[in-house]
């Protein structure tokens, strides 16, 4: 498996195991809502963001120690092509989500609903980004 595919798997894994539970908690409504600024909500998000960074840090270190030569190989033209395709797909998701969150949602929602929707838009575009990278490497294109 190419090193860059391993990195994409790691990033996708880190997103799913951290923001998956975060948005599950938010969507279930089990976290008590308070008036803005709700620093407990911010702390909850911060906790999951730190967890993601820890997973990424440990994962990158593990990958590097297992294949230090592969880690040092610079991206070639196919890597760059895959990266470009994945960014194009992710950008489409991000721009559509941002229109919904920034233009439509403020008429109906406010506070942390808007903030969490923005976070979800970013996470969704990141998921698309890494999924396209993995898909392209899997089918060798």
């Amino acid at each position, binding site marked *: 498996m190419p090193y860059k595919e391993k990195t994409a798997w790691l990033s996708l894994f880190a997103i799913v195991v951290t923001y998956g539970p975060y948005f599950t908690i938010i969507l279930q409504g089990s976290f008590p809502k308070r008036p803005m600024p709700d620093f407990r909500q911010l702390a909850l998000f911060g906790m999951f963001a730190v967890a993601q960074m820890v997973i990424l840090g440990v994962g990158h270190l593990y990958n590097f120690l297992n294949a230090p030569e592969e880690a040092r190989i610079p991206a070639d*033209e196919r*890597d760059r092509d895959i990266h470009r395709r994945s960014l194009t797909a992710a950008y489409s998701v991000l721009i559509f989500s941002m229109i919904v969150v920034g233009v439509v949602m403020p008429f109906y929602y406010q506070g942390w609903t808007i903030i969490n929707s923005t976070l979800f838009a970013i996470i969704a575009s990141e998921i698309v980004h890494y999924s396209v990278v993995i898909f392209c490497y899997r089918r060798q294109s």
Partner: protein
Amino acid sequence: MMEGTISNQIRFLRFRNREMSQAELGLRVGVTRQTIAAIEAGKYSPSLDTAFRIAQVFNVPLGEVFQWNSGANPGANPGPAS
């Protein structure tokens, strides 16, 4: 638009050049082993620059490495040159 596919003789040329590995070819061309594998399998079309580099490694003309198979004439693959 004219339809067609690109085929290549990289596997054959590697075999003819003392079973050169994909990794070695990749190193000499400046791409990863996985990229050579993808090109060889016809899953990825390299840039013109990389295509010329591959031909240069095998010391053959570009047309001997890559062939254009027109959709109108699918049997046009000339195969490996002797």
